[in-house]
């Protein structure tokens, strides 16, 4: 992976690498909430957006240092995640799905309408990335993604992972084992939101401009597609999903427009035929070959 930016020389494809690293972060963040804690969260795009906007506004309007601004943005996203967790504590299944969707839509609308602060649909321009070249940006974001992966992997292998999965499997019997569902859901949502916010910090610098439309609820669906297509509830699954769904539409070059159609179709097919995603497919293949 370290060698990738050298192998890939076109600026365009290097950019795709950066995007891929960001998607990996986003998929990992959603997987923590959806895959490990079993909460149907359709609002992850809100945290991605908050991360992007808070960090950008702090840097551009208030002259903050990028790293401090990012820290604040991650914190803001995390706090917002806790707010959504408050809904998750009281709601299950379909209701939570809709509430989280509502959360994302409200955030999106706030970003559009609070023009004094966010410039609304006009957007914010001339945003500089924290490091000079695309290659450097790739190493930065990918490095962070790797770090987050390792830490999350430890986390889900630890007793905390057991606790989260217990909540996913059966919240009532989890309570009968002393697990406080509310606290741990808050933990999962908060941490997941913070990671999504972290990814958001790098996005505006990468693109150069910042418009609310990049944080439409479609982003939530995209993240969900990556998690589910890759393999929900595993660590490597979201990574695979993010890589595949970032590169696949690009490789089918003439069909660049159909990126979202591919996501929708992939989501449908995976849920129908291989709910465990590509990880499940891989395991099944291994068993057949053994």
């Amino acid at each position, binding site marked *: 992976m370290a060698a990738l930016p050298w192998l890939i020389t076109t600026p365009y494809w290097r950019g795709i690498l950066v995007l891929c690293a960001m998607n990996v972060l986003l998929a990992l963040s959603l997987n923590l909430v959806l895959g490990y804690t079993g909460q*149907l969260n*359709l609002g992850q795009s809100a945290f991605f957006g908050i991360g992007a906007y808070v960090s950008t506004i702090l840097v551009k309007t208030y002259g903050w240092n990028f790293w401090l601004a990012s820290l604040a943005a991650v914190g803001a996203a995390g706090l917002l995640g806790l707010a959504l967790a408050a*809904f998750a504590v*009281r*709601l299950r*299944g*379909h*209701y939570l*799905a*809709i*509430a989280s*969707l*509502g*959360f994302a*839509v*409200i955030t999106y*609308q*706030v970003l*559009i*309408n609070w023009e004094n602060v966010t410039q609304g649909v006009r957007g914010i321009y001339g945003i500089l990335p924290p490091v000079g070249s695309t290659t450097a940006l790739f190493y930065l974001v990918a490095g962070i993604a790797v770090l987050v992966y390792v830490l999350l992997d430890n986390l889900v292998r630890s007793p905390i992972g057991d606790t989260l999965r217990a909540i996913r499997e059966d919240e*009532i019997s989890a309570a009968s084992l002393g697990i406080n569902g509310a606290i741990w859901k808050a933990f999962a949502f908060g941490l997941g939101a913070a990671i999504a916010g972290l990814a958001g910090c790098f996005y505006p610098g990468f693109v150069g401009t910042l418009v609310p439309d990049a944080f439409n*609820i*479609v982003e939530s*669906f995209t993240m*969900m*597609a990556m998690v*589910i297509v890759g393999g929900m509830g595993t660590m490597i699954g979201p990574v695979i999903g993010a890589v595949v769904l970032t590169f696949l539409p690009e490789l089918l070059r003439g069909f660049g*427009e*159909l990126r*979202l*159609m591919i*996501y*929708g*179709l*992939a*989501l*449908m*097919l995976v*849920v*129908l035929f291989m*709910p465990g995603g590509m990880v499940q497919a891989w395991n099944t293949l291994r068993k057949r070959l053994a």
Partner: protein
Amino acid sequence: MTDLLALVVQQSVNGVYLGCLYVMVALGLTLIYGVLNQINFAHADFVTVGAFAALFTATRFATKVLGLPDTGAYLLSMVAALGAGALLGLAVNAAVFAPLRRGDELRPLIATIGVSVLIENGQLALFGPIPYQFDSPFSRETIRIGRIFFSAQSVLVVAVSAAAIAALYAFMRFTFLGKALRAVAQDRETAGLMGINPNLVIALTIIIASALAGMAGALLGPVVVLTPFTGASLIVKAFAIVIIGGFGNVQGTIIAGILVGIIEAFTVQYLGSGLIDLVVFVLLLVMLVLRPTGLIAERKEENV
């Protein structure tokens, strides 16, 4: 009539007619939930498909090929929209709901999210992002009573939705199929034991619900900005309505639909159209916090 009173009445009228539209959209959603305990996330996209079907039928097919007058063309397009919705319902049932009948209850929701994304972007590829102009012969005519204005289209909407609701009600009350539907909604297993084929009833319900959605599209086309993504903002309101009215509760949905329509009318008047989604969803979240099972539905304690 004082200015303020006229304004209030005007917006109420607007609200009622918008509400009737929304009721038609939300009704299908609640029917599907009632009988299947599933949410069809793509439901509002069926509406958009219906709208496009109606648009092309009216403007290309009926007038140019069949040479029908505008009114006839429009009425034919409503039928086409109904058919398009029904077909979509059939397809989604066969592809998603039937195969996933036994399994994790949230899988169909995720699958229908995929369907929604697929439909929206498929339409984008076919029709492009620019909004379409859909004029029905009724949307151009304005009627005036005193100081209150409304278009003939709105009368049509109210008339058709009232007729649809009445027909649905009669269907559920008096026909065998309708009773079977209610039986399956209440207790699928027992209904099956009594000789009703639940799968058939479910399929039928989905088809009817989707046809309703399609037809709503034909009525809605002339009223809203028609793009491939109209469904995305519509589903928001549909969810709000179904939650406020109570999942599976037909009467609640009707009341909630009208309510949301009225809220929208007044929001547009006083806060501008950009904030509608925001207001509706804030309302939705408030509802979910206070009374997740809807205004009218009853609570059920989980059986441990």
